[in-house]
């Protein structure tokens, strides 16, 4: 992405209401889950939304699929918003506080990282 495009994407993101941002990130995560279903045979529920459990408990991702999804989402966020964020988290394996427990939790976590960047 050219510098001017990068800056425009970053400025647009700063001005975007939180709700719109959240929907965009949720959609982006769902797109990536669907891509992994197509390309890597990931077994995921037919209907995906914010409340869909990702990892731990009723989640459909095993630890390696989680790694693949998180890396794909990091790269998709960079392509869409022009900002490099890290979604690595020391509390990843905690059942209660993991940002990977649902699609919504991951979107919220990614959004907080985006806003802090």
């Amino acid at each position, binding site marked *: 992405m050219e510098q001017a495009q990068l800056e425009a994407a970053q400025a647009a993101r700063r001005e975007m209401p939180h709700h719109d941002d959240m929907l965009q990130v949720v959609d982006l995560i769902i797109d990536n889950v669907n891509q992994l279903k197509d390309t890597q045979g990931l077994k995921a529920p037919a209907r995906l939304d914010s409340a869909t459990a990702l990892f731990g408990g009723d989640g459909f991702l095993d630890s390696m699929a989680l790694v693949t999804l998180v890396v794909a989402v990091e790269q998709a966020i960079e392509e869409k918003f022009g900002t*490099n964020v890290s979604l690595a988290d020391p509390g990843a394996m905690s059942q209660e506080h993991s940002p990977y427990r649902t699609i919504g939790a991951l979107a919220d976590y990614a959004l907080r990282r985006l806003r802090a960047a």
Partner: protein
Amino acid sequence: MDAPVTLVTGTRTGIGRHLAEHYLRLGHRVVGCSRAPVDWTREGYKHYGTDVADEKGVKAMFSEIRRSYGRLDHLINNAGIASMNHSLLTPASTVSAILATNAVGTFLLSREAAKLMKRKGYGRIVNFSSVAVPLKLAGEAAYVASKSAVVALTHVLAREFAEFGITVNCVGPGPLATNLIRSVPKQTIDRLLAQQAIPRMGTFDDVANTVDFFLRPESGFVTGQTIYLGGV
């Protein structure tokens, strides 16, 4: 363009520069980095002023590599620093700096490289340890600890990255004529060389030969290994 993309860290001088030039001669597209600017350039070589211990800088460099090349075939984690001093005379800041560059830097570069390599399901990562680890060199506690960490990282990352088609190996050179050992007294070097099966200084080509082996596509079943040079 199908030439492999090879990232070498610490290319300003010494082994890193030699390896960058070596892989350019073999037709690779070579990306290099160092904290200080380089005073050399070659066609096909792209340099970044990146500190391997700076997570933000490392991620920014990989974003650019992804945008420019769309792939990474090889990572050579050569960047390293040393400090020769008795532990009782070593400040914590020195220990932190050595661990940051040698161990944390190797971790960060490997992590970001694997993200890019896994797209193709292929990659080769070569880390740099040192004969100082098996020789347990007195006077290099922080350096040896950092290079032991590199060996341990090599073992674990080899297992974590195997299913992405990425191998992770390590080379442990003995003394070479580089800036790293410039200030080490000759007597100390001689004592060290005497502990090798082949008691001579290593050469850049000795190192390149070992890295070549790890990078070969045919070496896909070789991972998690450390080769110490000189017969230590």
